[in-house]
């Protein structure tokens, strides 16, 4: 924003000491340190980006839609899904675009046969082991990369033993079914559900619960290998964990593994219909921070609340009151005469 403008025009408007006067030139946001430009070639096109830019941003700057699953602007890249891999000339392996920084003279291919093969198989691996039915993102990528998860056989039936899996131990099957993470839904509170049969282990919820936003650390990745899973300590139910129900994990979940009970109930009843939903941005009433809420309304009822990830106040995060504390406007009709006091 242009702060200097304000100074010059309004310098002498101080009339009443209680009417704030324009500020002087001293406090300004320190400018970001100037960054050198580096030139990279993306799919044959040379582009110039500031030093420190990731290949993901470089390819996006070049107008290329590089797929991502575990990447989110507001979180530290963990580069685990590997769907964003690209080919860099001179590199033995493919490199993750989301976290690799552009270097001067890099030659990058985003759609080579190797890249396409990796992306296709990664999606096949996921779709053959995870229920991706509520992830429009994964499904769109599956179409783009002509994915056939059935090449690995029918997926295994749900199992409720995943929380007990021991590191370094598995039972070898005859291979006729593709091992899958299908398991019962964890419904241990009235605000949101954890359906880890839909979890692709992108680590986003762990990051949002942990150092990247909420700093509550109620969940972490437990176990190892195929049995790695998102878990509380000893898989205790959420009410026994450190969870504070901010729902910031739901906000970042790309697959619907974490879901509002309100959304889940509507989906179960078959009445969830995004085409009938409106979303309106407003301000949360519960404190003076001024968090933007996006209210998703279906049939005059709030069905879900989130916040725009690019919002400078929230970065997409809310607290329990903002995300779940809206029920009072909906119970009003029923309890209009009930009231607050006895």
């Amino acid at each position, binding site marked *: 924003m242009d702060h200097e403008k304000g100074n010059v025009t309004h310098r002498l408007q101080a009339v009443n000491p209680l009417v704030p006067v324009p500020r002087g030139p001293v406090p300004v946001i320190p400018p970001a340190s100037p960054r050198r430009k580096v030139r990279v070639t993306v799919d044959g096109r040379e582009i110039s980006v500031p030093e420190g830019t990731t290949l993901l941003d470089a390819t996006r700057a070049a107008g290329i839609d590089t797929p991502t699953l575990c990447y989110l602007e507001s979180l530290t890249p963990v580069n685990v899904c590997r769907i964003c891999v690209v080919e860099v000339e001179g590199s033995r392996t493919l490199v993750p675009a989301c976290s690799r920084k552009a270097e001067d003279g890099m030659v990058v291919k985003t759609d080579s046969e190797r890249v396409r093969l*990796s992306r296709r198989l990664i999606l096949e691996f996921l779709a053959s082991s995870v229920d991706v039915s509520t992830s429009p993102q994964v499904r769109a990528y599956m179409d783009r990369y002509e994915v056939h998860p059935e090449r690995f056989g029918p997926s295994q039936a749900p199992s409720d033993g995943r929380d007990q899996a021991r*590191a*370094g131990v598995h039972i070898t099957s*005859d291979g006729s079914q*593709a091992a899958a993470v299908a398991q019962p839904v964890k419904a241990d509170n009235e605000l949101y559900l954890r359906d880890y049969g839909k979890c692709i*282990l992108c680590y986003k919820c762990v990051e949002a619960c*942990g150092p990247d936003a909420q700093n509550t650390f109620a969940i972490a990745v*437990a176990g190892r*290998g195929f049995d790695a899973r998102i878990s509380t300590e000893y898989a205790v139910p959420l009410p026994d964990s450190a969870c504070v129900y901010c729902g910031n994990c739901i906000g970042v979940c790309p697959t619907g593994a974490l879901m509002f009970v309100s959304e889940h109930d509507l989906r179960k009843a078959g009445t969830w219909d995004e085409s009938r939903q409106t979303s309106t941005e407003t301000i949360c009433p519960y404190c003076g921070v001024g968090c933007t809420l996006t209210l998703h309304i279906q049939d005059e009822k709030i069905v879900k609340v989130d916040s725009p990830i690019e919002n400078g106040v929230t970065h997409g995060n809310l607290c329990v009151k903002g995300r779940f504390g809206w029920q009072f406007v909906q119970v009003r009709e029923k309890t209009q005469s009930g009231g607050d006091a006895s």
Partner: protein
Amino acid sequence: MVLRVLCGESSSSLLQARVSIFQGKETFVDAHFTKDHPTAAEQQAVDSVLGVPHSGWKGGPRRPDRDGHSAVNGHRLGADRHLLLPVLHAIQARMGWITPAALNYACQRLNVPPAEAFGVASFYGLFSVTPRPPCVLHVCDDIACMTRGVEDLCRSVESQLGPAGSPSLNGKATWLRSPCLGLCERAPAALMSRAGEKPAEKVVAPASPQSLLSKLESFANATIEEPPDRFEASASAPQASQNGHSRLVLLRRVGRMDPASLDDYRAYGGYEALRRALNFGGSWVVREVLNSRLVGRGGAAFPTGKKWDPANQPRYLVCNADESEPGTFKDRVVMEADPYSLIEAITIAGTALGCERGYIYLRGEYPLAGERLSHAIRVARERGYLGTNILGRGVDFDIEMRRGAGAYICGEETALFNSIEGLRGEPRSKPPFPTQVGLFGKPTVVNNVETLVNVLLIVQEGGESYAAMGTLGSTGPKLFCLSGHVARPGVYEVPFGTTLRELIEMGGGVAGSGQLKAVLLGGAAGSFVSPAELDTPLTFEGTRAVGASLGSGVVMLFDDSVDLRKILFRIAAFFRDESCGQCVPCRLGTVRQEELLQRLNHRKPMGSVEAELGLLKEVGQVMRDASICGLGQTASSAIESALRRWQLF
């Protein structure tokens, strides 16, 4: 014993005095802990590593009259996080499993969220997060032991103790199958561990179906302390007990000296290299190592001199002793038989590079090496070879040892950093490389045990004359781990350039049926070669030329009675078990790879066998191309090399 190994090294030197004042139950920031209060035993286990709590906020008694008005260092979570792994070891050794109350208390003490600590505990194969009998028999059923009748052994154990994991001996013991225990020269091997007030570990190798159970019983009921294993050069390093040992350089002390005695070590030339290094100075040492063209012996074959760049101002020197590649045991032999040599080598490297501290990350399954190393560190410190003012030269340097807990992946250098830091042993993305961002985020040099031990030689003989040994691309001597169907398995030291055939002959030739079917070079992440390739010189460049790799120096022989397919299934199962699970290509690729092989095994291919083999290749390529680290990138290597050489399906 485990406790001693852990605490002797870490607690006193590491614990910063924490000044939290207000006494009472600390909760992790605003999170809550479970209501479980630790028993005296649980508390002692944790305190054995951390010392008694200074503050009630850390689990001591509340003294609010004095301290109710202030507290410090609330959020500095992570300051002691690196002690999480030693604490988990202590809990496991005391309680037999990681109990909720003990974990809870440990989290309070360390300011680590319980969910994260659980994530760490459940990452390691040697820890159990569910109740388990105190005594556990780990039977290695990996590929080297498969050549020595491990299936019979397991069947016998199963018939006597019941299915793996079930309690037996009146609930005192249980047994589990284990990946390679690094005892391949004495296959089939087993390792027993006993939790309790006097925890202990005991190696049984070779293990026989007849005697293993009685050994387990007496171990489960034992009250006296015994060493976890006995090192015998004749069994583990046959060259060292033969005539002609004098030609050996790396193994020259093995079997000759008392591994506990510093004076003995000095009598065999020990600590002369350190004196020389301190005399000539760090930059001289670094230059000699560069001139020696020493290449890392851990498996990745990276030039050591390139890592040793003082310009990076390395803060830590880490010795990777997490020797877990199936078929590898050379580092174990060095550490058990000649522990001071490693301590001296680390001291030379650390002081030459100006590092603040050295770390040895030792494989959790190596109890004897652990005892010997911690003893050697303690004695070296007492005698002025470690600590402050080393040899009176005004140089300070010290070494800490950490034990792994059953995770192959922690041999990957960045996973190893995370493991030391008390995080899950998940590899980090590279770049940045360890030389820039390593342990605790600081520039770090990581070297394998054997690599470091070579530095002693370089310092004493000079880089140029060291480089005269071996070949142009592979200088110096090399340790090989000969196992499987060979007459005299063990660690062998040869100059680079020796052919595979010559090495096998040194080992007394092919055992078993006497007809060689295949040789596995470099371990599970390496590749198979056929008898037609026996004249391959054992150098980095020579093996590369036949599409194989030296890896960690594994040379495992299979006679023609072996069903190679079973070996491949075991390798596939190994990678599935040992994948950390972080990235999709490896987490699921290793699963799909095993499933594909099992479909072929059960003759239930989907579509044609050719189509399945094509799909297997695709899976292999994606793991190689898109995995984060070397584990995934090499998880299909041995399997593909076998399928290239033999028509197995």
